[in-house]
């Protein structure tokens, strides 16, 4: 609980000292993006994980999808979708949601192969997610398990931003209001039918662009700290 009072960079340094040599160590050795960075200069990675459930201690990561943003522009050439193979069978309920079947998951790579790539892509950048608890906790748990140290990164969470905006406007928040696909129409964003980690990452990135232009109409006044979760 002490971590709450430490700066993000201090957390990074502490984790770096614990991390075993390897992908996480390399990742943590890269300085984090400063919270005073101008939006135009930000490198953001929009990330979505599909998992077998909500509990990082029991559940598994099934896939990740990501896309990078520079100059507040989504670069689809950076888009990446990776399935992760797991030993256990996929529970039926989550298979229905993600439409990832065992057969497909079998084409994936094990998490210990996928995680280094993910960390490399995130190094020095800002992580953009919708509902940060999942991505943050699952990656951190994986890092603890594989490399013996937690995962540290500046996070923009569009769900937290949405809650902030709606509360600020005195909206009563109903169940489901903060879901990604219920927020998008508020910003005149199209409906996406596909539901996989990559399309959700793209959808989140678009939602953030819309929110940012709404929250900070003047690009010159746009700094990372306006959007950070903590």
């Amino acid at each position: 609980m002490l971590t709450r009072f430490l700066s993000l960079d201090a957390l990074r340094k502490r984790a770096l000292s614990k991390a075993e040599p390897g992908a996480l160590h390399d990742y943590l050795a890269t300085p984090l993006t400063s919270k005073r960075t101008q939006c135009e200069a930000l490198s953001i990675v929009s990330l979505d994980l599909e998992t077998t459930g909500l509990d990082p201690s029991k559940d598994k990561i099934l896939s990740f999808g990501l896309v990078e943003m520079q100059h507040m522009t989504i670069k689809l050439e950076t888009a990446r979708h990776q399935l992760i193979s797991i030993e256990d069978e996929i529970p039926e309920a989550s298979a229905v949601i993600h439409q990832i079947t065992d057969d497909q998951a079998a084409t994936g790579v094990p998490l210990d192969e996928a995680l280094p790539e993910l960390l490399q892509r995130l190094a020095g950048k800002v992580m953009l997610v919708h509902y940060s608890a999942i991505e943050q906790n699952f990656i951190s748990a994986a890092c603890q398990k594989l490399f013996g140290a937690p995962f540290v990164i500046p996070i923009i969470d569009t769900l937290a931003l949405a809650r902030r905006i709606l509360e600020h406007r005195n909206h009563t928040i109903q169940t489901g209001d903060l879901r990604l696909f219920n927020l998008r129409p508020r910003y005149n964003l199209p409906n996406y039918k596909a539901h996989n980690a990559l399309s959700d990452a793209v959808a989140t990135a678009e939602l953030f662009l819309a929110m940012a232009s709404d929250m900070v109409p003047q690009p010159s006044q746009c700094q990372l700290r306006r959007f950070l979760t903590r």
Partner: protein
Amino acid sequence: MEIELVEIRDFLAKRPPFDALPEEQLNQLPKSLEIRYLRRGNLFPPGDATQGYIYILRSGAIELRDEEDNLVEKLGEGGIYTTDCQLIDFGRATHGLAAEDSLIYQLPCDLLKVLRKSEPAFDRHFAESIRDRLKQAVRTLKDNAEESPIAQMTVEVSDLIKKSPITIDINCSIRQAAQLMSEKNVSSVMIMEQQKLAGIITDRDLRKRCIAAGISTDQPVSQIMTTNLETIQKNTMAIQALMTMTRLHVHHLPVLQGDHVVGMLTATDLARHQTTNSAFLASDIRKAATVEDLAIVSERLPDVQFQLANSNAAALHVGEAISCITDALTARLIEMAEAELGPPPVPYAWLCAGSQARHEQTSHSDQDNALLIADEMKPEHEAYFEALAKKVSDGLNACGYVYCPGNAMATNPKWRQTLRIWRKYFNTWINKPEPMALMLSSIFFDLRAVYGNMEMFDELRTDILNKTRGNGIFTAFMAANALQHRPPLGFFRTFVLIHGGAHDDTFDIKHRGIVPITDIARVFALDQGLPPVNTTERLEAAAETKVLSREMGENLVDAMEFIASIRIYHQAEQIRKGLTPDNYLSPEELSDLERRHLKDAFRVIQEMQDAMENRYQGGRFL
């Protein structure tokens, strides 16, 4: 292989020009895109672009404006902006902004260049000028035409006559002619004097005028031949030839190319090639004994139009076919009236005006007509022509050609006049043009004789054209009149975009698409003194003069054909649903490609109107 970013791929796949890309290229395309979000009120294209892009609007709206801040174009979902890749697509637009919060895909010009190089079908979309695109659109319409029997109605006479002309010199004997006819196994022969057609004789003439009349077969053919021949040009449509035969009660029509004889068209030739439908229609019109009979026949007219549209006959030909049938109905009504009232006291001609005169009618439009009567007419003859006009006009109304709301009909004494008075009318309209008078009378500048004394009408028409030719003030008034109806700018979502940026749910394709072109063609025809009345023929003739460039002429002809086709399909769909055909088109009826082609057609009209405004200083007089 799993297709990544399938949503974006699918979005592009159904939109031109990306729909022209092969599957593999299309699957790769999303990866080359970048996505931006423009808040409402922000500049478009974004000022901070580091390189040239083609922009594709995913959601939202973008307005493009010209130097004077007039709206030129409004892009909605799927709208494409290519100007920054050196492709001039919005010629007059100088700046733009997001009218709504907009999500935008951008594709670097360099990548576009690579795609265009490797995919010719995709490239064509960008490389083509409006002119080529419209040509292609019209060609596609025609290529789709099935070889359905009904389409045969629109073949030309020259396609139906197979044999070379059978002719004989005027000094030959009747027997020689009969021998030639037997030898060639034909039912008629054309009689030539020098190189010109002097007459024809048919099997019937041999029977009635020679054998039954007891004339020696040693006599020259000139003794029994029919002179004062009705002839047709080889590019006449079969349906029109059929109607002419029906009207004249003849079975043979010499076919000419200019003055040169190229063949003989027989009723048998036509019957072989006509569909039962049109052949029945023609013979039913001929056989009709009462107005009620004709009204029953004319109930089939929407079906004929529907079938023609469905067989993808060119709009030009559909209008011609419908006009021909109306001509035939009118002629039959006049014959009935004359049978009842007795022969006319003095020669006259029944004139049709407007779309029927231009051969551009769609089924059951209003009737516009007039009577041209010889100057020998005495006051006591007035009753005859009044009665004739009433019978024919009532008959047309019973056949579905409702009375003209503007009362431009032969039943109106004002439009039932002698040649002298008609000359005076036109003289006034042409030499003292007034806006209101022109609006009312412009209908009479599209005029054609349907029945009666054609020479008298030719005289009037020559007189009119001599007066309008090179008449600057009159032309300026007509030009100003031609600028009254402006085409829409284009489409935006489910709306029609009109000048000033307002939206309409539907648009009147007649007044905003067809009328502007017919108006333009009329100005040229009158200014240059060109005889054609049909819009396409007027434009083609005008393109031979200095007032209209060949390219613009072709563009206008293609624009007319495309717009008229869309109108005919629209009406065919209504007929199919059992509705009354109208001219109100909703953008939702149109495919993306049709919208695009229509927009091209609108732009052609607009360019021409702008040019006309300058040339004739059109705005000055209204």
